[in-house]
């Protein structure tokens, strides 16, 4: 299993490095969206709830871009058949794709969070970093799991670019709830506090439940 996941991951990262079709787009989209928010909200700096919301919504929509492209190369170039013919555990594809999407999200955040701090965020990030990292990590896992499941569902349909987001966004609402609520006190202008444990717990549980569900259901999406 580990060997298979390793082989798949290498292939994913090679294709991404060769085509650069996901990560640069996602990152650029995030930065551009911050600029759009500045003009749309007519604010020079945001904090607290507003900051938290803008950050999470932007990350979410950028993630959707990555989700849309996650299985496209495989679907179009017969990659599924090649994998399905191999004597390997098929769940390896789920694990590999989740890890890939997770990697994309991490790179996205490495670009987007400093950009956010630079362009829009009022209070400084310094003290908020540990809490923010944990929250983002938990949120990313959830987005990666649900994103992979939804991407696999949508890729075989005719309207995949449209159905993907429509399926993903409601399923990701609890992650937005947990993530934004947890981040909001971190970014407060006065008396910023740590991320409330309740929301981190919610995120963690959601990740766990959907991780298990995805693991149980994924094989059904691959076979015929």
């Amino acid at each position, binding site marked *: 299993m580990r060997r298979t996941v390793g082989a798949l991951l290498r292939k994913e990262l090679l294709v991404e490095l060769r085509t650069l079709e996901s990560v640069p787009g996602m990152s650029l989209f995030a930065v551009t969206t911050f600029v759009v928010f500045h003009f749309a909200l007519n604010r020079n700096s945001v904090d607290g709830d507003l900051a938290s919301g803008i950050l999470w919504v932007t990350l979410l929509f950028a993630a959707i871009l990555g989700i849309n492209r996650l299985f496209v190369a495989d679907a179009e170039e017969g990659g599924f058949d090649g994998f399905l013919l191999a004597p390997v555990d098929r769940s390896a594809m789920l694990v590999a794709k989740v890890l890939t999407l997770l990697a994309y999200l991490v790179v996205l955040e490495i670009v987007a969070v400093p950009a956010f701090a630079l362009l829009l965020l009022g209070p400084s990030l310094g003290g908020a970093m540990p809490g923010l990292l944990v929250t983002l990590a938990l949120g990313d896992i959830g987005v990666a799991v649900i994103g992979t*499941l939804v991407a696999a*569902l*949508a890729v*075989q*349909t*005719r*309207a*995949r670019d449209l*159905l993907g987001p*429509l*399926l993903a*966004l*409601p*399923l990701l*609402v*609890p992650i937005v*709830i*947990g993530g934004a*609520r947890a981040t909001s006190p971190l970014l407060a202008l006065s008396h910023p506090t740590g991320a409330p444990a*309740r929301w981190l717990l*919610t995120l963690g549980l*959601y990740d766990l*439940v*959907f991780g298990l*569900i995805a693991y149980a*259901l994924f094989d*059904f*999406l691959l076979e*015929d």
Partner: protein
Amino acid sequence: MYGKGLRALSIATVAAMALALALVFFYAPLEAEQGFLQKIFYLHVPLAIVALCGFVLGGLLAIQHLRTREARWDMRSYVAIHMSLIFAVATLITGSIWAKGSWGHWWVWSEPTLVSFLIVFLLYATYQPLRFAIEDPERQSRYASVFAVTAGAFVPLNFIAVRLSTAYLHPRVLGSTSNLPGPMALTFVVSLAAMALLFATLCKYELTAKHTRAQVRALRRRLTGETGAPIRRRSAAPSLQPTAASAGSATGSGA
């Protein structure tokens, strides 16, 4: 024949609904604060409960489909979700009317049930487009089942998450159902039973209609001697595979 018990079920439903309406209008006392408008509670909450159970049921039926790969489970799952979606829309509408009546706004974010329903509705509204977008019927059924299971698991989780997020903002506007006085509780239970029967009856009607249509198609094919591919429009609904035997026999493919 597929429609066994349909008449009995319909009669029971009509009776239950009549009883519920009678209780609502003549038996249940007027609520102190909200007056007559409060009676919409006997419509809104049963609709909500039945819709939610219907969605979860759709997920359970889908699990059965994935396990056995028999088309009839997918058909049942499809009908359950389809019907629950209609009930969910009705929930949103009645909830909105109630909110307007009690609070003056057509929509309130502070009512977690309503908000959760909106999210659930938005999710399940993609069920039929998803099915329609997959042409291969086998794959359509399989993917729809995966969706139904995921969404079915999502429903309770979503409710918990939304309730957590609104708990600290405002007190519940529309009141909880946990401590109802006697007459109200009775009326509520009867209304709930009537709604559940209505759901079951409507589902059964739809399933019977689909089965019958599939049998007619099979018979027609046998009569005209066609063996080639029937030209069917792309459809979001699952298709059944009545065998030539079941199309001809009186007992049919059964439930």
